[in-house]
């Protein structure tokens, strides 16, 4: 059967989300548009204004991101060619990918665990948030990608990051416990079509097929989190099987010892988590998770859940 006329052939893989994304034509258009380049500044080197000025010297014009005091959106020029990028004064990262760390909100003195760290974008962002005065353990299972983390740590010149080559799903107790844990898990990547349009043409991973490992990783994140600490679970995909369903599973499994906090950022337009999908009902509080669609903020697509683990005496 030929596709309905209002769906570019490219978007067939995303059609299953037609009824949940709100404004489908806007979603469809945005999903095929090129992605704006954004970056965050390494505040250990200078203020956002100073680093924006260095970028401008190299022909990269930027404008501040309204919702993120460390963020810049590129108006013109190639930041990857700038000295500021080469020397680690700034880091190119997609706008939505900066949001998990903003919600995790690590502070100087905190201990942070990043379960799936390569290439180290969010790890280094967290370490910079902590002014290099916390401790961050970055885990990566793929040995070939450890170098990316180490190189980014060196570029940013950070002294508080330890990198582990390990499968985070099997992290032993001896790795310790952490105030903040990031589970930015491997996923179907449906939200990255603006950056990698070829995703739309490949067979790829069927939506939801990674749910088993995603559940293991979130479970491990909860286990390694200090009682009273925070966990961020995030993916760059739309499939509820990999998002709400994973969070719902762990909320039920933890039976009151885990709760959702509102994943909301001032100045960022998002949609609440779904209450059901294909016949499965989720707990009502799952609506506190955050769905980000390309047309809402001119970004990629993303999903974020912010969780709190009960302290020994339960929740206050």
């Amino acid at each position, binding site marked *: 059967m030929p596709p309905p006329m209002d769906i570019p052939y490219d978007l067939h893989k995303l059609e299953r989300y037609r009824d949940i994304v709100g404004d489908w034509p806007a979603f469809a258009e945005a999903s095929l548009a090129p992605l704006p380049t954004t970056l965050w500044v390494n505040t250990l080197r200078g203020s956002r204004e100073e680093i924006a000025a*260095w970028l401008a010297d190299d022909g990269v014009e930027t404008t501040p991101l309204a919702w993120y005091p460390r963020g810049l959106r590129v108006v013109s020029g*190639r930041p990857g060619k700038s*000295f500021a990028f080469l020397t680690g004064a700034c880091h190119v990262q997609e706008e939505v990918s900066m949001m998990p760390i903003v919600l995790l909100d690590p502070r100087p003195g905190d201990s942070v665990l990043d379960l799936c760290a390569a290439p180290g974008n969010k790890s280094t962002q967290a370490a910079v948030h902590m002014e*290099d005065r916390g401790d961050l353990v970055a885990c990566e299972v793929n040995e070939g990608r450890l170098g990316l983390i180490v190189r980014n740590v060196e570029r940013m010149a950070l*002294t508080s990051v*330890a*990198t582990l080559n390990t499968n985070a799903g099997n992290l*032993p107790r001896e*790795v310790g416990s952490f105030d903040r844990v990031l589970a930015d898990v491997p996923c179907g990547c449906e939200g990255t079509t603006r950056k990698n349009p070829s995703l739309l043409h490949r067979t790829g991973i069927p939506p939801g097929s990674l749910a088993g490992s995603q559940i293991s990783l979130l479970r491990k994140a909860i286990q390694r989190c200090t009682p009273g600490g925070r966990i961020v679970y995030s993916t760059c995909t739309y499939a509820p099987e990999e998002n709400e369903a994973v969070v719902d599973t762990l909320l039920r499994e933890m039976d009151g010892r885990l709760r959702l906090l509102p994943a909301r950022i001032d100045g960022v337009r998002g949609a609440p988590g779904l209450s059901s999908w294909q016949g499965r009902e989720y707990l009502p509080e799952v609506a506190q998770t955050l769905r980000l669609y390309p047309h809402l903020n001119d970004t990629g697509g993303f999903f974020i859940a912010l969780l709190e683990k009960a*302290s020994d005496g339960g929740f206050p």
Partner: protein
Amino acid sequence: LSRDDFRVAAEEQLPIVDARLYLALLEERFGIPAELFKEYSFFRANAQAIWIVRRGLPLPARPAPYAVGMPFYYYRLRHPRPTTPAALRWGHLATRHVAELDGEQIKPFIGYQDVPQRPDQAAAFSRGYWLVRYRGQLLGVGLATTDDADRPVFRALTPKYWRLRLDQLAAGSDDDSTTEE
């Protein structure tokens, strides 16, 4: 928050070294105060460099880390020198031996080639290591020395991956998201 912690301080797990010699060199050559580094520890990560880590950084007891902190000083050289990350992080505190390069000089510097010197610089560059600045930004470390014919040269000491990146840029395969997943 209470931590049932299995982690042990970096000082108990890593081959810690006394870095006073290198800190003294840093202070003597560049005026970067040694006492600034009281909140750090130093260890021998490999045969080339002393690495720096935040003092007391708790490390997992198991599995053993693949990397901790960042390289700080190349100690195996006849004349030890600060690494590029160290220059990038603390170079702005230097009070002497900081070379301000111009637009003509910066590309060879990034590309690990000898930097052509302006007449005023050749006289001013005393032999030894220099921190390099361009438009007010710290970029790394250079060496003022002489070539085989005893002519003064200014040698770039920049990381290998900068050169690779420069080659990529020259080849037109610029991917600004380089490391983004």
